[in-house]
């Protein structure tokens, strides 16, 4: 299944919404993951759900550098291009 960049954005915000308990449409590109209350377990859940739903592995060092929703969506988009 090919997932386009816009879908990746939806997937990222949808998952962040599920984990944080906030509405997905209230999460914007500049939102920081720490502002969503993501602790280490939240980040682990994020990594696993993203990999399950996009079908792509996300290396730990790449996820470590993610601070904002925008960072996350760029990461997913770049992995889409390189796939």
């Amino acid at each position, binding site marked *: 299944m090919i997932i386009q960049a816009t879908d990746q954005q939806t997937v990222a915000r949808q998952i962040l919404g599920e984990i944080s308990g906030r509405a997905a449409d209230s999460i914007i590109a500049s939102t920081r993951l720490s502002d969503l209350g993501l602790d*280490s377990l939240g980040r682990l859940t994020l990594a696993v759900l993203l990999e399950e739903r996009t079908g792509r592995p996300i290396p730990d060092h790449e*996820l470590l550098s993610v601070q904002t929703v925008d960072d996350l969506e760029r990461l997913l988009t770049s992995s889409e291009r390189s796939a």
Partner: protein
Amino acid sequence: MTEKPTPTTSRTSDPPFIAESAEVAPAARIGARTRIWHHSQVDADVRIGEDCVLGKGVHVASAAVIGNLVKIQDGCGVFGATLEDGVMLAPGVYLLEDPAPRAVNPSGHLKGRNDWRREPVTIRYGATIGANSVIAPGVTIGRYALVGIGSVVGHDVPDHGLVMGNPARQLGWSCMCGHRLNDNLTCPTCGRLYHQRPYGLSLAT
């Protein structure tokens, strides 16, 4: 001493405490003021430093070397590992050392002491291993690293690395004080600031 374990003998003016039900081999070297609680077992070739605590039912075997001020809580298994000072193992942690575990060798005989190659775990200064975690043979856990509850760690963890899960993944960084660092590598609790290094993090000077 700050990093490398230099265990001492039990012949000091301040001897270790060993519970009556614990089995500590006479040849094991146990440091001053170390306490070994009920039903724990320490084998003959083991060295343990000063001011340590071994909880109930801990087994330390296979020439493990344990530094000073180490806490090993109930039910842990430490097989051949090197634990630097200030390490904490929460209850039920297992540190393994056989990368090719078999009961028998290819000719069908029970494997003996010389039938396998040891690859023990190394846990560096101040690191904490969460309850019921398992560390695979040969893995090194970095200084002040933090392994989350129930993790299975198959790869080295950098200094101050925060890892969790099965297989364990690095999800952030942990402070000396045990809290998770924020995005700026600063501890929200104690305010310490860190810098990225090739081997993990170190305190900013």
